[in-house]
Each structure stands twice: as structure tokens, then as C-alpha cells.
């Protein structure tokens, strides 16, 4: 048995304890600094924006520069609202969802049913690369494909193509993940009853995975609702309520941009920003809640 010989160990515990305490204080301080911006930002939007929100805000279209200037000069509240933006956003996002959601679910199901193949991995990797493409690049693409060649002019459809490409990878990923979480027995039981494949997908897989699928849809909606850049070069914007998808259309983020750039209308930015942010955050939080519930359900 060899005895281990060690030199007397110096007592550096005081110094180490001090470093330990200092680092802990640093971490706590930094963490609090981290949350300051979010509080400031949300605070500012609410404080500045809440005043301008009224019934008209939702039903009237945006004022033009002259109306705004006159109102300011005569000390009146600027007239108008963002109805054209709200309807435009609704139209564009609806079209984008109609394109991206069914397609994304089909692709997600394909990936789920063909695990392990090289082709499957290729599709998945490509989808992930697509997810990382900056939204402004997708705006360029939609400009070249739709605005130039299809609608021959700025249009709501152009905007929705760009946004649908943004939604697609998110839907694909959430569909595949959701399908993976469905217990195999359910699928096997349906097959054993001789049901045709497409019925199994529509009547068993999708309803069973509805929560997970909704999470993905809500999350991708919250992501595209706030987008401005791709719409600037496709939908362009409009001062009227428009439901013709081949024509330029407004959207809430576009209105915010217009208000921001016009010195007369600058005060309108806050109410629109408040509206947009509340909308986006609500969808965001909702989708996280549902996702958390699914996780808890599985743990049980």
C-alpha cells in the first residue's frame, strides 16, 4: 500500500469564497439588466398607445397626411384608424396560411412516415435552411416571382407568398414532432381495421395531434404577423380597404411604417404598435401554453 504524500495545502478558501460570491452577484445583476428592456418596451407601447385606441381605430381607414396635418394644426384628435391595415393583414395572412398549412402538414407527415431515409434527411435539412432565410430575401423572391410575373404589380398575393414560405418550415417541423408523439398503437389500430391511408391521416392522426399542430400554426402566425420588410416590396400598402388579392394592399406593420415616416402622423404609431404587439404576443403565449399542456399530458 503506497501512502500518498502531499505537500501542505494552502488555505485559499477565503479568496475562493469571495470570487464565488462576486460572480453570483454579477449573474444576478446581469439577469436583472436583461429584463429591463422588455419592461421598458412593453411599458412604452402601452402608455403611449392606449390613448388612441377607440372604436374608430378599428373601423376607419388610415388618414392621409393632409388630414393629419390639419387636425394637428387645429388641435384636434387625428381622425381615422387602421381598418385598412387590419383587413389587409387578415387577407394576406389568411392566404399565406391556406397555402402553407396544408402543404406543411403533408410534408411533415411525409417526413414522419419515412424516418431514417437519406431523402427524408435532405428534405428536413433543406426545410431548416429555408427557416433561416432572412424575411427580406423572401420579399425579393416573391417580388421576382409574383409581383413581376404573376400579378404584374404589387399585390396582396405577392405578400402572402413571401409569408407562406416563412411559415412552411415551422409547420413542417411542428407536424413531424407532433406525429412522433402519437403513440404507435393508435396508428396500428387504425391500420388493423383496414382503413385507407388518407382516412387514417385525416380522421386519426390529425385529430389526435390537433394540440401539437395548433401550437405550430399559432407560432408561425405570430411570426409572420409582425413582418414588415417582405410586405414593403410585395403588398406595398394602400389607403383603402382592399380585398382584391391582385392589387396593392395595406397591412398593420406597413401602416406603422407609413406613420413613422410621415411627420404628421407619427403619433399614430403607438396605437398601431400596441395593437400589433398585443396580437402577436397573445398568439405566442397561447401557443406556448398549449405546448406546455401537451408536455405535462405526456409526462402523466
Amino acid at each position, binding site marked *: *500500500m*503506497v*501512502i*500518498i*504524500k502531499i505537500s501542505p*495545502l494552502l488555505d*485559499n478558501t477565503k479568496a*475562493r469564497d469571495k470570487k464565488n460570491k462576486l460572480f453570483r452577484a454579477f449573474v444576478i445583476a446581469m439577469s436583472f439588466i436583461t429584463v429591463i428592456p422588455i419592461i421598458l418596451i412593453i411599458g412604452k407601447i402601452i402608455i403611449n398607445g392606449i390613448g388612441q385606441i377607440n372604436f374608430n381605430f378599428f373601423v376607419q381607414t388610415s388618414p392621409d397626411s393632409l388630414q393629419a396635418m390639419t387636425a394637428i394644426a387645429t388641435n384636434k384628435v387625428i381622425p381615422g384608424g387602421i381598418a385598412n391595415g387590419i383587413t389587409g393583414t387578415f387577407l394576406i395572412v389568411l392566404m399565406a396560411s391556406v397555402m402553407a398549412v396544408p402543404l406543411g402538414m403533408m410534408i411533415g407527415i411525409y417526413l414522419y412516415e419515412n424516418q431514417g431515409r437519406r431523402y427524408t434527411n435532405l428534405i428536413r435539412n433543406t426545410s431548416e435552411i429555408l427557416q433561416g432565410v432572412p424575411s427580406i430575401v423572401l420579399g425579393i423572391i416573391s417580388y421576382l416571382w409574383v409581383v413581376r410575373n404573376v400579378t404584374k404589380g404589387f399585390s396582396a398575393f405577392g405578400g402572402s407568398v413571401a409569408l407562406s414560405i416563412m411559415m412552411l418550415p415551422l409547420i413542417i417541423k411542428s407536424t413531424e414532432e407532433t406525429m412522433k408523439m402519437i403513440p404507435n398503437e393508435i396508428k396500428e389500430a387504425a391500420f388493423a381495421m383496414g382503413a385507407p391511408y388518407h382516412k387514417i391521416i385525416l380522421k386519426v392522426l390529425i385529430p389526435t395531434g390537433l394540440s401539437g399542430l395548433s401550437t405550430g400554426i399559432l407560432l408561425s402566425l405570430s411570426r409572420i404577423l409582425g413582418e414588415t420588410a417582405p410586405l414593403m416590396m410585395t403588398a406595398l400598402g394602400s389607403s383603402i380597404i382592399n380585398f382584391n388579392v391582385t392589387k396593392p394592399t395595406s397591412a398593420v406593420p406597413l401602416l406603422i411604417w407609413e406613420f413613422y415616416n410621415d411627420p404628421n402622423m407619427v403619433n399614430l404609431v403607438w396605437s398601431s404598435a400596441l395593437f400589433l404587439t398585443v396580437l402577436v404576443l397573445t398568439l405566442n403565449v397561447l401557443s406556448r401554453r398549449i405546448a406546455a399542456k401537451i408536455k405535462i399530458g405526456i409526462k402523466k
Partner: protein
Amino acid sequence: MIETLTNIENPILKVRNLSIAYETDRSAVKDINIDIESKAITAIMGPSGCGKSTLLRAFNRLHELYPYIKTTGKIYLNEREIHEMSTVELRRKIGMVFQRPNPFPTMSIYDNVIAGYKLNGIKLVRSEYDSIVENALINVTLWDEVKDSLFKKGTFLSGGQQQRLCIARTIAFNPEVLLLDEPTSALDPVATASIEDLLVSLKKDYTILLVTHNMAQAARISDNSIFMFMGELVEYGKTETMFTNPKDPRTEGYLTGKFG
């Protein structure tokens, strides 16, 4: 009335009224009073959930990592109360080996052995480190097997070898007491036997506290045995006596396999 060994001279560890509770309403360990004999192997046995690991981990104050665990009572190491020492000093004197071998995966074998020094910011000369590593690995009979791969990471070692590396890491610090929490339950019988032989050879220099759920192991290598049941100390005595002539019916029930 709890049976305790009353003839231990200069016990290295003394426990007085130790109680440990998780979230105040569930007591894991209730009012333990024992003296631990120096340079001997003391086994702590009992069925699952009896509190044996909880008791073991009180000796190096590991419970303080978890704010929801409350400890009351006193433990004395060489007449000094351990809660009045700094944890750093305590853990130099009392080392711990865990159930699943856990060498640090990002460190080489060499660095694993001297991990205690590195973590404590102790800087020695390279030759001192070399001799510590060599001696520790010789003491755990791992030297010949790894001396040519000292700078590789330990993940290629077998379970038994990894566990011996963890023991080497602990004794490199020359502690007085070794706490082992079911050190062989994740190992195969051959590895288990080699660790048991190692512990017997180590007891000449270290006091060993061994939690085990394997009665045969306790019978094989321990000098003294503690039997716990539902958080209480039921019986404590020389292993030979306790196994052949248990005084408490619960001890007898456990040893004869009536429950486990």
C-alpha cells in the same frame, strides 16, 4: 432502545440527534445517534427508502445543495462539528464515491485524478502531480491498466475501471473518511469483487462508510453494520454478531429476506 456499539474508543465520527426532512412533512432520517469506528468499514443497510443514502450524504453536507432539504442535529469529525467548518475543509477530509461511476467526461484520466486539486485552485509542481496520480492509481490497482493512456479521456474504461478511477480521485486528496453510496450496484460481479477487495485494502488507511443494498456484500467486507428502516436506526453492531444473532425482529426480517 437503540442498540449501539458502546465500546468504540475515539470514534472518528459521532452523530447526535440527526434528523433530515424533505419539505418539512416527510422525514427521511429520524433522530440518529451513532459513533463510527475509525479505520474500519461500516456498512449501512436497509430496504429501499429507509434513508441510508440520505444519512450518508449528511456527512459531507451534500444536502446543502438542495434548499428543500432541512437537516437538524450534529455530526462531529474528530470532535469538531462539521457544520461549523467550511464545506471546503470538510470535503477535503471526507470524500465521496457515487453509485454510478462519474469521471468527468471532458477531462483526461490524469486530470480526473487530480480534479480535486484543480477544482480547489491548488497549484502544485508537475512532478508532485505526477507522483500523486501514480500513487493514487496504484492504490486502486488501476495504474498498470492505464499508465500508457493517462492523457486520454476516461470514457473508454469499463464500469469497474471508471469506478476505481473515481475512488482514486477521492483518495488523491488523502481524506480521512470515504463515503461510498452503493458503489458496486451498477457493476458486474467481477468488477464488484475487485472493488470489494480494494475497499478491504483501503481500510488500513481510511475510515469507510458504505451504503449497500446487497446484504451479502455487507457480510463479506464490513466490520460494523447499521440497519435502518423507515428513517430510523434500528440496529447497529459488529457485522458478524448482527448477521448471526440479530437483536431486532425487523433486522432479522430483512436479513432473512422476509422483506427487502
